[in-house]
């Protein structure tokens, strides 16, 4: 039976010793568990990519606007030995979870057609693994200057500017949104990030296939339809999942663009398979 003093109600000012002892032990146990757990949960994380989003820093770039199949600014980076200029493309992305098109359309309403014109544009850089994007953070005000192309420094305008075909390929990877993947969010892909990637791609940011080889190196492919049309709406269901894409691969300066005619989700996820096994039991 319980000893007389072994009873305590919170509104009494002091607890009997036997009770105080137990409560103190519980508090000490918690005081040990709390730091251990905090440390363990952090330490065991997978880690985050070294991708960079220069939040708060605006960078001005000058280059030629390319609008199809996805919007790029084509920036001359250096001259090669035979004096041919070398270009790098910076993917243009809108502010928030939006593609660049609404901003580019606003510019064109003001200045007339801008395709293949030379633009001075200010925005926030996002970069990872040799790929860069520019967020048009200031939207309509991000366009600082427009000029024609100087024929001497830039090759003649053509629709396949700097683009070359690499043939038909079949690729397996995860559909991500380039904005987060290249640095705006960490992690910028995978299961927990999926809903955000869906928002970004639904908002017009071109989908990006991230392909990882056995040694963990990654390659990225911008994904468009067979004629270069956007696939954003139809690909939403497959965002953040393992898929196999087939199509014509083209190199556009430092980017790879996949003109895909087939998007196949890969075989059932292990979780669904084990669920089915469990249900059959």
């Amino acid at each position, binding site marked *: 039976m319980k000893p007389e003093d072994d009873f305590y109600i919170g509104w009494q*000012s002091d607890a009997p010793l036997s009770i105080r002892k137990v409560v103190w032990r519980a508090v000490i146990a918690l005081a040990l568990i709390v730091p251990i757990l905090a440390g363990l949960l952090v330490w065991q994380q997978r880690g985050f990519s070294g*991708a960079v989003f220069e939040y708060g820093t605006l960078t001005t770039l000058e280059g030629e606007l390319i609008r199809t199949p996805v919007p790029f600014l084509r920036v001359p980076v250096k001259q090669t030995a035979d004096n041919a200029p070398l270009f790098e493309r910076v993917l243009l992305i809108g502010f928030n979870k939006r593609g660049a098109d609404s901003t580019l359309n606003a510019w064109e309403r003001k200045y007339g057609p801008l395709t293949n014109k030379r633009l001075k544009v200010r925005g926030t850089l996002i970069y990872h693994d040799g790929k860069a994007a520019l967020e048009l953070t200031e939207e309509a005000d991000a366009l600082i200057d427009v000029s024609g192309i100087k024929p001497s420094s830039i090759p003649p305008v053509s629709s396949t500017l700097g683009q070359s075909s690499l043939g038909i390929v079949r690729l397996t990877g995860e559909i991500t949104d380039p904005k987060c993947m290249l640095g705006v969010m*960490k992690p910028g892909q995978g*299961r*927990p990030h999926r809903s955000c990637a869906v*928002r970004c791609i639904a908002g017009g940011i071109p989908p990006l296939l991230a392909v990882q080889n056995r040694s963990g190196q990654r390659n990225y492919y911008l994904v468009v339809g067979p004629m270069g049309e956007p696939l954003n709406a139809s690909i939403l269901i497959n965002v953040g*999942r393992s898929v196999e894409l087939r199509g014509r691969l083209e190199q556009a300066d430092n980017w790879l663009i996949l003109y895909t005619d087939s998007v196949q989700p890969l075989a059932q996820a292990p979780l669904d398979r084990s669920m089915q096994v469990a249900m059959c039991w």
Partner: protein
Amino acid sequence: MALNYLPVSWNGQKKLYDWTIAGLATVYLVIFCGLQAVLFPDVTAETIIIRATSTLAFLMLHVILIIGPLCRLSTRFLPLLYNRRHLGVSMFLVASVHGIFSVIQFHSRGNVDPLVSLFTSEPGYEHLSQFPFQTLGFFALLILFLMAATSHDFWLKNLSPRVWKTLHMGVYVVYGLLVMHVLLGVLQQETATVYTVVLGIGMALVIGLHLAAAIVSQRTDSRPLGQAMDGFVEVCDVHEIAENRAKTLMINGQNIALFRYDGKVSAINNQCRHQNGPLGEGKIIDGCITCPWHGYQYLPHNGQSPPPFTEKVETYAVKCISTRVWVDPTPAPPGTPQTPALLNGQ
């Protein structure tokens, strides 16, 4: 109690309780965020906030859930229960930082309303691997909000204890939702075995302690010893009950607390009108049965709280034949006076 829930609210013990919660939560957040920044400098501030607050809230929920069964197993843990609602409200606040940040981070500034996005961005409701785990977190947070908003005794009184208690049993629904929220969400990406093991230990503690408490209280609930006679059943020997304490009985579905005091024995319903606390685990203090959970008091002979309070519980007729105690398990309406059984010859 109901009439003076404001005045009794604050004492040294409660303050100590709140400081302990705040201190431990701060230690957790400082270590989590600090270590995150040192070990993974590439991480973003949003992810640190989302992960630090979610894991802290989930840890707090585990503590909240194991306090109940611990108290059933040993009354010495009761001081942890007394102020548990502060722990609950703090947990809700921490969890809402996680929820709100997640909604902003993943769903805001897109082409649809954030809450529409939460429910529609991942339409794979039929596949476990693609189930929109964030909606589970949303419903958990919603229930936690309702619980936190009604945690004050004002609501307990207004909603009636039954409705209130039912609402607050929602914490178990919350726990289930959150286990799935974690399993179907972050554990699909962060696949280190440690996470599964830690979650497993947490679940084992919560479930194991609840089972243990249920088994133990089943064992301590006495059942009638023999046949009924004039409606009375023999339940125990008077010496089995300590002075100013009770024995709990389960007869015909009636949960009865049988108290012995001042050479008398009285029986009232075991469930406190406040939050169904186990009155039979309480004690008679200043002539009143005092609930072990938050100290509501009832007079043993009529089940009424002493004036000015108005709580009442059902009472039962009791008689003593030599040293044997007999109880009529038919409940009399709450607050009905009964003649206490005198311990003859003592």
